[in-house]
């Protein structure tokens, strides 16, 4: 039973992700606040985190090198 739910969830997710949004429908997606990266103004905040925290990466920030920290 559980297997079925997992397979259904997988198929539903796959189908959702296959739905194509046309260029003329991307007005909201193209809003500057919708970008899938950090804003440039936040770059120094991310750098401060990479100095003070053990975890780095997967956020567009530094992953190593360039300073004596981390």
């Amino acid at each position: 039973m559980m297997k079925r739910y997992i397979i259904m969830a997988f198929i539903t997710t796959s189908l959702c992700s296959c739905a194509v949004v046309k260029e003329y429908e991307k007005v909201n997606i193209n809003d500057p606040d919708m970008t899938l990266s950090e804003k440039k103004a936040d770059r120094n905040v991310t750098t401060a985190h990479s100095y003070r925290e053990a975890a780095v990466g997967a956020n567009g920030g530094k992953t190593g090198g360039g300073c004596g920290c981390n």
Partner: protein
Amino acid sequence: MEAAAVIDKIKIMKRIIIIFCLLAFAKTYSQTFQESTTVYKKRVLETTEVDFLSSYYTQDGDNAAVSGGIGTEELTDATGTFVVSIPLNDDDILTIDAGVSAYTSASSSNIDPFDDGPADAFQASSGASRSDLWGNVTGSYSHSSDDRNKIWSTKLSVSTEYDYFSVGLGGSYTRLFNEKNTELSISGNVFIDTWNAIYPIELRPFGENVNGLNNPFFTRNNITGNANYNPNFTPFDSEGRNSYSLGFGFSQILHKNVQGSLAFDFVQQQGLLSTPFQRVYFSDVPDSFIDNFQLADDVEKLPDNRFKVAIGGRLNWYLNEVVVLRTFYRYYFDDWGITSHTASIEAPIKITHKFTLYPSYRFYNQTAADHFRPYETALSTDEFYTSDYDLSEYNANQFGFGISYTDIFTKAHIWKFGLKSIDLKFYQYDRDTSFSSHIITTGFKFIMD
């Protein structure tokens, strides 16, 4: 009759051949027509853009790594960066990113706490190590294919500070599919770094070919507590540190108002991963002092390899014309025993067509590194040890607030550059230990006329 049938067949064949030829000609002509039609290609970047980013950062706490996990962590840092993006043609962009960061640190001033007044881990010293300047220049070049579905880029970076020098080289390739609804990317970076190792002042006389307690440093300063001070110190053989990272990205438009992404980063670091001026105090060695400052038993010792894995996801949702939700989650682990969760949410609120507010919250936690030892708990028999509380277990909360001004008509000008946007943000960061920090960031974006 048979001859007539053959003639009919020949006529039919002729018609088929003529129709085939006509079709072939029509197809060829249409292809030629398509090939000769000029396809409009939008420039990847219309004009030169300049970003000026700055920040002012302050922090404080009671667990300075320089003084073995006890002492002031007070630090201020001011950073200024210019990012200039220049379109070389319709497809190519050259970006120059140059920044300078100047910091003043009470804890690093205590690399030599004995240069003025009574030494104390909770007070800053006025020595040369009190401040430093970090400089960085990165040049990157990107090329987009005619259909804008393939993008490759390469970059070269150099950064330097008094005791550290780094050269980095990287590249990435991005492929868009599914009418630009799906994006896959791969990236790689290599950093070749070199330390100019600086050790705590009291350990230097115990390096190779020096005279230990007979050094003038110890004749000038009187040792209290264990007067037979004999640290377990050997300078590091190698001062190089190399980092190699490989990243994979996947992003997908899920709906006309929702899009998300996944990122996987793998990082391998090799070389001197210890920080040479961070002291460690052993619990099985009697303590020695000069003034109120405890003398180091050693500097931190960490393995010369570290493998890090980070898996992150973003989901952005355009709720309506006023509010957007931006969310982020990351799971991280490494072979030093640290696992970490990061989650953040930001909700940009458009209050007018020019002004947007940016309230945000971020949660972070991590477990301690296997080799982390709080102040005075490491043993002299341990192979590895550090009292750097950045590698300890903790939770942290960060609250942020910002405001952004955008003028799409760029009316305000400085020389040939029109001001497009101004960002101003403030973040307050608190650990569940004594550590806290604040940062104010500004960003100005200009576009060339």
